[in-house]
C-alpha cells in the first residue's frame, strides 16, 4: 500500500477542516457582521468585535511561548558541561 497511513489521513483532513471552519468564522466575524443590523439573530453566535483582535493576539503570544519553550528545552538538553581546570 502506498497511500498515507489512516492516522496521517485523519490528522491531515482534520487540520484542513479545522482551518476552513476557523477561516469561515473569522471572515463572517470581521467582514459580514458590520453590515448586519445589530438586532439580527446572527449576532448571538459571535463574540463582541473587540475579541476578533484580542483572541488572535493571545494565540500569537501562546505560539511564541511554545516556540520559545521548545527552543529552551532543546538547548538545555544539548548544553556541554564546563571543563574543570
Amino acid at each position, binding site marked *: 500500500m502506498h497511500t498515507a*497511513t489512516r492516522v496521517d489521513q485523519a490528522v491531515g483532513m482534520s487540520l484542513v477542516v479545522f482551518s476552513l471552519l476557523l477561516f469561515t468564522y473569522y471572515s463572517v466575524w470581521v467582514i459580514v457582521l458590520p453590515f448586519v443590523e445589530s438586532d439580527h439573530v446572527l449576532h448571538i453566535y459571535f463574540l463582541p468585535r473587540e475579541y476578533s483582535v484580542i483572541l488572535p493576539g493571545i494565540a500569537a503570544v501562546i505560539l511564541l511561548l511554545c516556540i520559545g519553550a521548545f527552543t529552551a528545552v532543546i538547548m538545555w538538553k544539548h548544553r556541554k558541561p564546563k571543563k574543570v581546570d
Partner: protein
Amino acid sequence: MTKLLQWLFGVSLLVAGWALVSFDLLDLKLPQPYREVAWPMPLYLLVSFGCYSLATVGYRVATFNDCEEAAKELQEQIKEAREDLRKRGLKM
C-alpha cells in the same frame, strides 16, 4: 528599480490606503460599516494566511504517500553511516 523597492512601494501604497480608510485621514466620512471592516484588515490577512498554511500542511500530510522501500533504504544507509563514523572514532 530593484524588486525590493518595488515591493516596498506597493506595500506602502496599501498601508497608506488602509490608514486613510481606517483613521479617516482625509475626512472623507465613509459609511461606518466600511470603516469597521477596513481597520482589522492587516490582522485578518494574517489570520487568513495562517489558516491557508495550516490547511496546506494538513492536506500534504493526508496525501503524502508512504514509500516503504525508500524508508528501508534510508535505515540501511543510516546504519552504514553510523558504523563508518564509529570506526573513525566519532562517539555517537
